[in-house]
């Protein structure tokens, strides 16, 4: 299997920590993504490492018994340590605050604390087997204040820090889940829901295991993922992942089913809005994208893996030593090891080896694994780092060896422009809202973010189309067809086409002498009017005379190019036409007499010169009451010429009333 085949990889720089062993306990906090290595109950040191922390936090604490759970509050302000089943100990890490430990016992009588979760820098939730207790920590007073509590039998719990939702498992079968949502000192109870367990013989008691549930945010929505080892429908074997959508308001709803088509041990991650399912038996993983089209049966959508199953890319562990010696050869890391622990959304921890990785998706290999270009684009457009890959796909499908058919190319362009248009619309409504003075509205307007999926005309031109059009090997018919297809797609989404795309079309047509084609495109206004385009056309006149007319028509339609029209006509010695044009639009009082007289003289047509000269005499008469030219007009030379040809008496006399 070549390296280009793996589409999942472990991050290059894992968080490294001391391996778990009898004297070193390792804890992971999902909220801060920190690993705690607690040696001898803290007495010989606690080392805390997070993914972004350059400098690990290390401290000591007294060994007051076995540590069951240890977590910092958000922003590492307060440390909470659970050592007994009734109490949690606190220690301030805020400068100027006392670092003496203080303790909180759970309020409910005879309850055992299952664990705790920080929901902010000073708010904490205790989960006991009899309910939950929501506290505010007052570090300066070294005490806690109970904000709210709720009594309920709890089998186990799960916390999703991104959405601040705690899920409690209740009932005997453990399959009724009660979510709570925390925000700024408030705790809200969301509607509970039941996870459908697979049908099982009555004798065996099947309950919902914590291991088979995960919570993750996918495309901005919170989902509860349930790994169902046996399908409920008897006709299909193999496990599946059931996605329950947990909205902020309203009931939880079963939405998607991901078909795994295999059985065994699985683990879930969510990376870049993709659900990754690892399968230990085959040591491979598959990915699912719930935004890709699946089979909808009226209530849920069934999805199959986007791509064939692949192993995570082999990973080499650099030989660890006190001072990492580079000469030592790296050791291949055992992937899918039974000592791996997987956390949401994208974390894989090997406690025995002392590593924490983030799982990553590699897009480039996927390009060759997904032959359906339309589906590939749908997939790529939803990924974070997609732009360069998308552009490379576009280049590839236009290349000689991998050329796609026009309908496929059209589909790809339409998908890109659909995304592009969505962004343009959002941007426009933002601008309009700002202009309308809603900038101080509440909540404040947010400028739409431009994701990498927005591939605009300039991206396409720079990275794909200009190189493609200049490729001499490419049949020009195909080049034109592709450019027109792109322009068609832009037009279909009502996106204004930039002139450089039109110029590319024109250049290609001109290079291959397809002037008549060009003419037809212009005739139907496929190439939008612009001054640069009109000038380009003018320059083509010597190769293709009708370009002159096309250019003039375009200038006329622009209606802001009257000066250019006059210049064009004068350069063609069409002095009378120029004068008639400028008079037609009412601009003849402001034009330079000298310019027209020069042009008329150049034609060596004396009658024309006479006509033009007389026109300006009349203008002078009308504007100033005198037919003579003023010195500022610099027409002396022409007056002299006029006299020489037609005689002094031909000059117009000032009319006196």
């Amino acid at each position, binding site marked *: 299997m070549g390296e280009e085949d793996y589409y999942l990889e472990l991050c290059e720089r894992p968080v490294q920590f001391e391996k778990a062993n009898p004297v070193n306990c390792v804890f992971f906090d999902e909220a801060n993504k920190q690993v705690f290595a607690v040696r001898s109950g803290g007495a010989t040191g606690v080392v805390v490492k997070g993914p972004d922390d350059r400098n690990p936090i290390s401290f000591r604490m007294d060994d007051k018994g076995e540590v069951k759970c240890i977590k910092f509050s958000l922003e590492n302000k307060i440390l909470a340590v659970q050592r007994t089943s009734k109490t949690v100990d606190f220690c301030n890490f805020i400068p100027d605050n006392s670092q003496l430990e203080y303790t909180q016992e759970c309020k409910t009588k005879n309850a055992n604390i299952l664990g705790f979760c920080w929901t902010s820098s000073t708010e904490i939730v205790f989960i006991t087997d009899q309910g939950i207790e929501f506290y505010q920590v007052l570090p300066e007073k070294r005490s806690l204040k109970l904000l709210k509590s709720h009594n309920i039998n709890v089998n186990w719990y799960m916390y999703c820090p991104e959405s601040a939702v705690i899920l409690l498992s209740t009932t005997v079968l453990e399959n009724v889940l009660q979510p709570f949502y925390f925000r700024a000192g408030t705790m809200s109870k969301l509607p509970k829901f039941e996870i459908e367990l697979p049908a099982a013989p009555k004798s065996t008691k099947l309950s919902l295991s914590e291991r088979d549930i995960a919570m993750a945010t996918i495309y901005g929505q919170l989902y509860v993922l349930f790994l169902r080892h046996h399908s409920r429908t008897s006709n299909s074997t193999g496990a599946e992942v059931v996605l329950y959508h947990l909205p902020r308001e309203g009931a939880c709803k079963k939405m998607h089913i991901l078909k795994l088509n295999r059985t065994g041990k699985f683990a879930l991650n969510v990376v870049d809005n993709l659900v990754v399912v690892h399968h230990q038996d085959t040591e491979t993983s598959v990915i699912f994208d719930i935004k890709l089209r699946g089979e909808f049966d009226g209530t849920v959508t069934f999805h199959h893996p986007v791509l064939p199953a692949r192993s995570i890319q082999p990973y080499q562990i650099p030989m660890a030593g006190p001072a990492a010696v580079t000469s030592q050869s790296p050791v291949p890391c055992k992937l899918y090891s039974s000592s791996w622990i997987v956390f949401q959304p994208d974390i894989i921890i090997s406690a025995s080896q002392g590593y924490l990785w983030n799982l990553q998706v590699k897009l480039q290999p996927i390009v060759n694994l997904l032959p359906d270009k339309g589906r590939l684009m749908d997939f790529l457009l939803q990924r974070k780092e997609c732009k360069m890959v998308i552009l490379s796909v576009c280049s590839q499908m236009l290349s000689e060896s991998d050329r796609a058919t026009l309908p496929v190319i059209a589909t790809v362009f339409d998908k890109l422009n659909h995304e592009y248009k969505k962004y343009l619309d959002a941007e426009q409504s933002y601008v309009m809202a700002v202009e309308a003075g809603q900038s101080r509205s509440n909540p404040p307007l947010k400028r739409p973010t431009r994701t990498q999926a927005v591939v605009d005309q300039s991206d396409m031109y720079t990275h794909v189309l200009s190189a493609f059009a200049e490729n001499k090997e490419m049949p020009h018919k195909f080049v034109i067809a592709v450019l027109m297809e792109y322009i068609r797609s832009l037009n279909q989404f009502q996106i204004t086409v930039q002139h450089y795309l039109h110029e590319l079309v024109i250049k290609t047509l001109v290079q291959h002498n397809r002037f008549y084609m060009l*003419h*037809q495109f212009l005739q139907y206004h496929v190439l939008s009017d612009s001054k640069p385009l009109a000038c380009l056309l003018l320059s083509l006149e010597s190769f293709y005379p009708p370009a002159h007319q096309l250019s003039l028509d375009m200038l006329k339609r622009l209606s802001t190019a009257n000066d250019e029209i006059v210049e064009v006509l004068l350069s063609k010695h069409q002095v009378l036409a120029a004068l008639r044009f400028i008079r037609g639009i009412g601009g003849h009082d402001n034009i330079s007499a000298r310019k027209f007289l020069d042009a008329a003289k150049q034609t060596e047509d004396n009658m024309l010169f006479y006509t033009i000269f007389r026109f300006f005499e009349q203008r002078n008469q009308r504007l100033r009451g005198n037919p003579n030219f003023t010195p500022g007009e610099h027409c002396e030379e022409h007056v002299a010429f006029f006299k020489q040809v037609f005689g002094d008496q031909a000059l117009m006399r000032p009319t006196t009333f």
Partner: protein
Amino acid sequence: MAAAAAGAGAGAWAAQEKQFPPALLSFFIYNPRFGPREGEEENKILFYHPNEVEKNEKIRNVGLCEAIVQFTRTFSPSKPAKSLHTQKNRQFFNEPEENFWMVMVVRNPIIEKQSKDGKPIVEYQEEELLDKVYSSVLQQCYSMYKLFNGTFLKAMEDGGVKLLKERLEKFFHRYLQTLHLQSCDLLDIFGGISFFPLDKMTYLKIQSFINRMEESLNIVKYTAFLYNDQLIWSGLEQDDMRILYKYLTTSLFPRHIEPELAGRDSPIRAEMPGNLQHYGRFLTGPLNLNDPEAKCRFPKIFVNTDDTYEELHLIVYKAMSAAVCFMIDASIQLTLDFCRRLDSIVGPQLTVLASDICEQFNINKRISGSEKEPQFKFIYFNHMNLAEKSTIHMRKTPSVSLTSVHPDLMKILGDINSDFTRADEDEEIIVKAMSDYWVVGKKSDQRELYVILNQKNANLIEVNEEVKKLCATQFNNIFFLD
């Protein structure tokens, strides 16, 4: 045919007057090099209509033309004579290829009056025919021949005089019957192309359709697309398209209109399983694709005869009002399988596209609103793209092109056009015709516009204003000088 012309003349009866329209007297093609010596003159004649004419008369007539051309060449070596006016008829000369001469003799229109003693008096109207109109008709004869047969020279190379004569005979025997000399007018001079007005988006869809079809039927060399007998796209060069357009709109399409109107021949076909129902059918080539014996013979056409000289199959395929011409290199053998494949690929898509165009066209018409019935009768022509627009001509039928104005007015238009041809400058000519009609001709750069106004007691200034108004509404998006 000349003999029958008198009978065919559908002259209007007016005060004991009988009118006979112009008619074709004779039409011949010769090459003076083929029989330079005395006694061999007959060899010069490549084609002669009517064929029944006695040999010596043929030789005499050809000789006369040769002499006239030779004689006039002395005065104007670069521009030999184009026509010869006589009392009874007019002769038109054309040398389309070196030393190959085509001559058309047209009898002037006749008015037959009853004299007082009851004897008919025949009056030839010598000044009625316009040289430019009939010269253009003659040139068109050649262009049409060349489209279907290639050049004279090519025939000579392929099979000598014998082959050339055969081809000329085969082609012109039928073609001359379709010349309707009585209804030739300004439009024959222009030989223009009527373009279908279309919005950008629909046009781009058509582009996309054409490109896809050319890709999936990868042997197609050129494509042309028409809707409602008006051109939308031509992959052919302008001159070739001009004559092909003429053939399609005056010959091929009209021949298929009647069966369409009768509702035959255009069934929705759904025999092919999994296929979209569609209205597509071949106007050239096989009539019934289910008949295994069906012949896949398509007309051959010749294009780019000046340089690459290409011989092509002409496939014309139509669905509703949309027609596509696919042109394929003639060396490729077209099979029934190919035709079926074309039908299954093109048929459904063209059907959808045709209804799209129709719908879009109706929407655009509604939006612009003002495009109801123009109050003006005008003819517009642009030499640059051959675009032609006439509100004077009714729909063309295979037999005659109907105009809605009096022939005298049409003649004025022709006269103005002749004036325009003489000068390079932009011009404007306003003519007051009889019975309250005004005729205005405008020429701006490469464009010509002819307007016929009928306003009681209008004066020159008012007429000028009216024309300005017309230009502002109909031609505001082009550079057309007032």
